[in-house]
């Protein structure tokens, strides 16, 4: 269709139906119910049981973490959270658009002022955010909106103004270097985007 036709038709959605479980639209045999062995929503899961996983939901301390790896936590005593959204970008997009980059010039880590005081750091300092798996550079943003026990680093940074041969310095700024690549024993889902870390000043020339 032409853009003008699209303008008239928009917003346009794929057709959808409600209460498909009542109409037999969820199961391969066309019967009413959910797509499980019993046709019911299963809190005790036959599927999980059949593959020798725990059929009931359970909680496991995040790893690494203060509960699961206390020795590591001694060395990396801050809880790290990543990926909070910023108005100026989407994942790794938009760093190269001047108007949007003007809103968020640098990759940041948000740190509570009390934590900064305890570490002898200040708003605007460049720091390494580091743990046993890797490290990434961030500029400190002092803010009371994060808990003093944690730091919040943004993600997906690369510097379009830097050297393409060095992949725009992505490896100096990649917060994923601190994250493990395991989704847990079922293989379902994704890895944790949170971890533990320490932060310290970037030295001259690093």
């Amino acid at each position: 269709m032409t853009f003008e036709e699209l303008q008239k038709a928009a917003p346009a959605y794929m057709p959808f139906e409600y209460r498909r479980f009542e109409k037999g639209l969820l199961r391969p045999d066309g019967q009413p119910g959910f797509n499980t062995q019993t046709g019911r929503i299963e809190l005790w899961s036959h599927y999980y049981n059949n593959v020798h996983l725990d059929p009931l939901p359970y909680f496991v301390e995040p790893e690494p973490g203060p509960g699961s790896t206390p020795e590591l936590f001694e060395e990396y005593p801050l809880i790290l959270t990543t990926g909070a959204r910023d108005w100026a970008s989407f994942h790794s997009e938009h760093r190269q658009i001047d108007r949007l980059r003007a809103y968020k010039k640098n990759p940041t880590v948000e740190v509570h002022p009390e934590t900064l005081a305890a570490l002898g750091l200040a708003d605007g300092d460049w720091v390494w955010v580091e743990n046993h798996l890797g490290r990434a550079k961030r500029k400190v943003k002092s803010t009371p909106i994060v808990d003093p026990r944690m730091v919040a680093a943004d993600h997906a940074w690369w510097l379009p103004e830097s050297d393409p041969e060095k992949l725009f310095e992505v490896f100096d700024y990649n917060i994923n270097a601190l994250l493990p690549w395991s989704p847990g024993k079922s293989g379902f889902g994704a890895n944790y985007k949170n971890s533990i870390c320490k932060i310290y000043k970037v030295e001259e020339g690093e």
Partner: protein
Amino acid sequence: MTRYGLLIDHEWCTGCHSCEMACQMEHTMPVGQCGILVKEIGPWQIDETTWQYGYLPVPTRQCDLCADRTAKGKAPTCVQHCQARCMEYGPIEELSRKLAEKPEQALFCVA
């Protein structure tokens, strides 16, 4: 002469900068200039349960209330693009009445 302006309900402004972006693009302004600017106020703690953490968009001297758009019956582009729908354009008389209806609003007389 009738004065026109922008009534902004800053209780609901989320600081998304859509108004700024729309304005810059509509009027092709250089990066760093704008007809409207969003100011962040806070965050700071007031008492045990209350924080100040809000935003206020402020029209600048470069705001002409999108005269080209309003001549065609369209809203100024900032008003049009506000994702929180917290901005209104109109005659000052009319907007003044709405201003009195609730707190945490600001009325800017622009033109």
